[in-house]
């Protein structure tokens, strides 16, 4: 809990030297194609971008797949709601065409719907493809670089400053929370459910107190150094665009756009 794994991996990825704009544009383009495309193209996108993340960027497959399982778990949770349907026995004839499998339960007929299965399939493909695009961004572009891109495209200054400071404080507070957690556990906290709630309540209260102590200390520091209301940071990182990666990205995107267009024309 004290360190955020995704963040660490993003700083150490093998695609770090590529300009962040390129990676963001690539992922956004793929995301747009995902939303316009049909299932086969979406699956192709998911596979292709997973290769970028796991092979080119060198993100461990175990971590990547574990992250993907979050989305898959959400999909599985909503699966019953999508495909199981219930209807009053008297109205059964109206949905006969939609019934795949079913049984009678009291006055109701509970069935798996064709439309639901189809919908769930389409949803799954789209969710996995777009999640893979998002993960490519968060696993290869460190947050500070996303911020500098946002600053350049004209995001409100206050928002950028808040995000910059939040990003810093999240790690400070996570560490504090972790230390509190360890201290409580070593003194017998969190043993039973009731104790757990009590310990957690103490932890949150303490954390808030320390957060505000932090606030007072930092504002004193800033004032003593002539704070005028702006936070400025310097960025001096050199990026190297890579011809090979740009070519593959462009070529692949063109191919996917053509495939999607072809699907629309043929009407599959």
């Amino acid at each position, binding site marked *: 809990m004290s360190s955020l794994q995704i963040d660490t991996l993003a700083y150490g990825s093998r695609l770090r030297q590529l300009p962040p704009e390129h990676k963001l544009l690539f992922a956004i383009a793929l995301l747009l194609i995902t939303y316009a495309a049909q299932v086969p193209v979406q699956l192709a996108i998911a596979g292709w971008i997973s290769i970028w993340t796991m092979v080119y960027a060198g993100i461990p497959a175990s971590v990547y797949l574990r992250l993907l399982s*979050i989305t898959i778990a959400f999909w599985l949770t909503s699966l019953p709601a999508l495909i199981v349907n219930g209807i009053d026995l008297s109205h059964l004839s109206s949905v006969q065409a939609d019934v795949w499998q079913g049984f009678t339960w009291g006055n109701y007929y509970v069935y798996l719907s064709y439309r639901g299965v189809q919908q769930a399939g389409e949803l799954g493909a789209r969710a996995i493809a777009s999640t893979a695009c*998002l993960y490519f961004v968060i696993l290869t572009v460190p947050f500070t670089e996303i911020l500098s891109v946002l600053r350049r495209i004209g995001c409100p200054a206050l928002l950028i400053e808040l995000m910059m400071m939040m990003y810093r404080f999240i790690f400070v507070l996570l560490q504090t929370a972790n230390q509190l957690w360890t201290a409580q556990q070593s003194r017998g906290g969190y043993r039973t459910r009731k104790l757990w709630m009590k310990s957690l309540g103490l932890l949150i209260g303490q954390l808030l107190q320390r957060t505000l102590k932090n*606030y007072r200390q930092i504002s004193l520091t800033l004032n003593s150094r002539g704070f005028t209301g702006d936070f400025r940071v310097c960025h001096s990182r050199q990026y190297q665009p890579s011809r090979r990666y740009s070519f593959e990205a462009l070529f692949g995107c063109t191919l996917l756009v053509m495939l999607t267009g072809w699907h629309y024309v043929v009407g599959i």
Partner: protein
Amino acid sequence: MKTRHRNWVSLVLMAGLSGYIVLGSATPAQAMHIAEGFLPVQWAIFWWMVSLPFFWLGLRSLTRITKQNPELKLLLALAGAFTFVLSALKIPSVTGSCSHPTGTGLGAILFGPAVMSVLGGLVLLFQAVLLAHGGLTTLGANLFSMAIVGPFVAFGIYRLVLRTGQQSVAIFVAAALADLLTYVTTSVQLALAFPAASGGVMGAFIKFAGIFAVTQVPLAIAEGLLTVLVWNWLQSYGREELETLKLLKQEN
């Protein structure tokens, strides 16, 4: 042949169900973030359109406050980071697994709902980027349920129940209802996007709400209790801190 076919189907169903239960219980119940890519284009855009005005209004009032008092930027950022860390903690849940508190109730009571609509949005962004919970296209929908409905409901109810003079009750009800309404809103969002073949949006809502109730109702109660514990502690040991936080609400 017919019975054979039937056996096959029931076997597949059984395998599917057990796989579902095993996978579903292995992953800790997340707070109700709609995952990336879950909403169809039109709904994703719709919820962005609904949420952005709130976010923008919140941001405008924050800009005004911080112009007068630049130090408050720090306090805001720390409050945001605090909310993020809160949502990364684990609370025990009835099903044996752990879930995460949403922190919207406590945040709204401590920092005020208008501030929370901006901070909540940023927290959601950080959750998507650093924890891979939620997503960018669904950020609009999540923003609406967690950073707008949750905090405003929490704050409104807190104020309402506070009139009776029962502060602990007010805190509990506010935090628990904020959680519950967040989850109801998410179910509505999913139901609108995926209406059932029979029963339409209402049917789909009942199904989604029923499924998520299993994890979300105990979570809401747990979070309500937790918030009361935190508040009691702050009342007795953190008076000074609560005074500092009034800065954010007064100038709102």
